[in-house]
């Protein structure tokens, strides 16, 4: 900020990077590298930052559902036949299948992590080789990405089956407030997981089409963090329904 003094010293201007001179010292904060293509590290950092910021509203959505869950659970309702206030919260017996689905999703999270590390290693090897003389694709690679995709789809199919089991037991979306929340929470989680599956699908298609490795690496990296978040979120939702329902 300006200071009210009588004289001022003006230093020589520093040379901007686009002059190809010595880059000026970075004081703090600013990281932008100029109009040229950001390097892999910058792009990865930016993508991760964007993802972590994006997770905040997802978290807020489920925090909001949780608060509604807790409030609604404790509300009495008027019974018109007896004119007394009663609780209409009937706990839902969750299908055992949900346990298996939880296991599938946790395994998919592990395979996703392995896929992330695999493609990151390949990307770093490509950077280190700086050219086509060193092959980075000769080793047989476990298709972790495809496995994650299959496990993710299996989880969604399992959730759908669990919905059908709930319905077969007489618990529909409007049967009781607890069943409303079961459908709501599982449905909202599945919708978010579908986003992760779409990202995996895009990465897979890019792989088949031999898209740039670094780009795929970034997509897989942020999808992996998202996927882990989805797995944790599901564990939280399952515990909420199981132990607080």
């Amino acid at each position, binding site marked *: *900020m*300006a*200071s009210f*003094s*009588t004289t*001022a*010293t*003006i*230093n*020589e*201007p*520093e040379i*901007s*990077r*686009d002059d190809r001179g010595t*880059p*000026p010292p970075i*004081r*703090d*904060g*600013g990281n*932008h590298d100029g*109009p040229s*293509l950001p390097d892999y590290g910058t*792009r*990865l*950092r*930016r*993508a991760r*930052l*964007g993802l972590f*910021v*994006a997770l*905040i509203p*997802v978290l*807020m*959505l489920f*925090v*909001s559902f949780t*608060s*509604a869950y807790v*409030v*609604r659970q404790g*509300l*009495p*309702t*008027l019974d*018109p036949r007896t004119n007394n206030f009663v609780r209409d919260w009937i706990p839902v017996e969750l299908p055992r299948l949900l346990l298996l689905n939880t296991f599938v999703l946790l395994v998919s999270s592990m395979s996703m992590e392995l896929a992330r590390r695999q493609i990151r290693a390949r990307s770093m090897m490509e950077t280190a080789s700086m050219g086509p003389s060193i092959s980075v694709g000769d080793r047989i690679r476990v298709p972790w990405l495809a496995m994650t995709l299959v496990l993710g789809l299996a989880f969604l199919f399992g959730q759908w089956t669990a919905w059908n089991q709930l319905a077969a037991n007489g618990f529909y*979306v*409007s049967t009781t*407030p607890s069943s*409303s929340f079961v459908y*709501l929470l599982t449905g*909202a989680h599945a919708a978010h997981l579908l986003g992760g599956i779409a990202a995996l699908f895009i990465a897979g298609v890019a792989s088949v089409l031999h*898209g740039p490795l*670094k*780009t795929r690496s*970034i*997509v897989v990296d*942020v999808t992996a963090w998202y996927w882990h978040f989805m797995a944790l979120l599901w564990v939280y939702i399952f515990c909420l329904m199981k132990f607080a329902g």
Partner: protein
Amino acid sequence: MATHESGLPGVHEHAAPQGFIRKWVFSLDHKVIGLQYYFLALAAVFVGMFLSLLMRIHLIWPTAALPFLGEIKPETYLSLLTMHGTIMVFFVLTTAPQGGFGNYFLPIQIGAPDMAFPVLNMLSFWTTFLGFIVLLAAFVVTGGAPLHGWTGYAPLSALQSAGPGEGLGADLWITSIAIFCIGALMGALNFITTTLDMRAKGMTMMRMPLTVWAWFITAILGLLAFGVLLSAGILLLMDRNLGTSFFVPLVTVNGQLTGHKGGSPLLWQHLFWFFGHPEVYIAILPAMGLCSQLLSVFSRKPIFGYKAMVYAMLSIGFLGFMVWGHHMFMSGMSPYTAFAFSIMTMGIGVPSAIKTFNWLGTLWHGRIRFTSPMLFAIGFVSLFVTGGISGPFLAQPVLDIYLHETYFVIAHFHLIMGVASIFGIFAATYYWFPKMFGRMMNETLAKLHFWLTFVGAYAIFMPMHYSGMAGQLRRYSQGTEVAWIKALTPIQVFISIAAFITIASQFIFLFNLFWSMAKGKKASDNPWEATTLEWTTATPPPHDNFGGHTPVVHNGPYEYSVPGAPRDFVMQSDPEIKAAH
């Protein structure tokens, strides 16, 4: 069009598009997207204003038959009220300051070539646009637009049979809000990532212009608030269409049980106002940042207490999440809870007063240039104080219970959230128009516009305080047949006439805007002699903002009248100033 691996996270550089569609419709350029947001808000504000015109006509001539519309029925009045509030809050006050000016100028002011995620930026605009179209569609479907107010209180909003407009119209209203939330969240994500990761060298957080701070804090508020509104909207749609009972208790409509039971209308209010109160700050924080900027530029003085301004905005943002309950004093909440919300609400007065004090401190002994943007900035301060001063009245439960359903509240929130924010938008338009379009706006018309709007706004809303205190109830479509309200009709007539004149004067602005684009005087690169980075680049800015040059920042954003400096302003990218003490 991409010069490299495009459409990917973290990639922001893209070649200038050539075709009309890619350049002006599905553009990735933050400047074009900013203009798209701005013109969307401009269209929305005229729709919203037209609806308020119809309401004001109806209030003083309740039986008048209007061309094409006929006589306005009470339920139609409620629809007008609902759509006016929704359009103004979401598609004007949230869209123009943040989506419009924020998109255009945040990257330039921090020295970045674009937003962090250009594709997401484009999607956020088109999502918002879709939300607006869906909302407007509510006018033309069977039953018409909803009548539950912009706050959508359940159970009125949750029952399709609750009234005309609560059928498909209400579904469209909720869907529109949900779509808007998704667009706003995408925008907030971009604003935060761009601010944190793409600042030019030397642009430390404490060198950022207060406009950037305001957009940044607003984005954080949006990130935390819109997810909650989205969740409430999902629950409401489920209540309406899937038979759930989140918000609907055991209730009858026309003597028939609805089939719902056990839900809580108050749960809706809690969720809605957890979003709704921060929304007030989402609307006004960008205007606060901008007016801080303008008061410094046109007083030729550094902003008084830069750090205090930053911390005050952060405090306002934080406290904004702690006070939602003051909208619910009427709900029968525990007096202890009400007391806590009351204290927190009055606590917001502290950072607000700090800001006001600093604005006055900036003006004090300044060499003030009374340009049109400066007039609107001073007008903003005036309206902020006038609208804000009634806040502590309403923050006290015992007073609020009397005033809550009256015009006093209408006066309060229109002045503080509506008109003050709109003045921020006008100030921003007059200030940045030369940079955006390369021409100056007509100053005479601008000043005429200012005085008519400034006087008009006070003429409309000041009398509402008195009619509210006298007991005039809001949301009532007619007061001419109710004895104690009938006595207040002359005030309503005065307000309506003031509104007609004020609305008409907005066409001066509209004419000036479009006329100046074509015929305005050519603008130089820095016509206001300001210091921030947007004034270092060409007018209008090139596709990559700085024409291949990367700015390096050496100075703070408000270096005016620095002793010993060759000019009375030192730009942020000028050589570093080291003032001798």
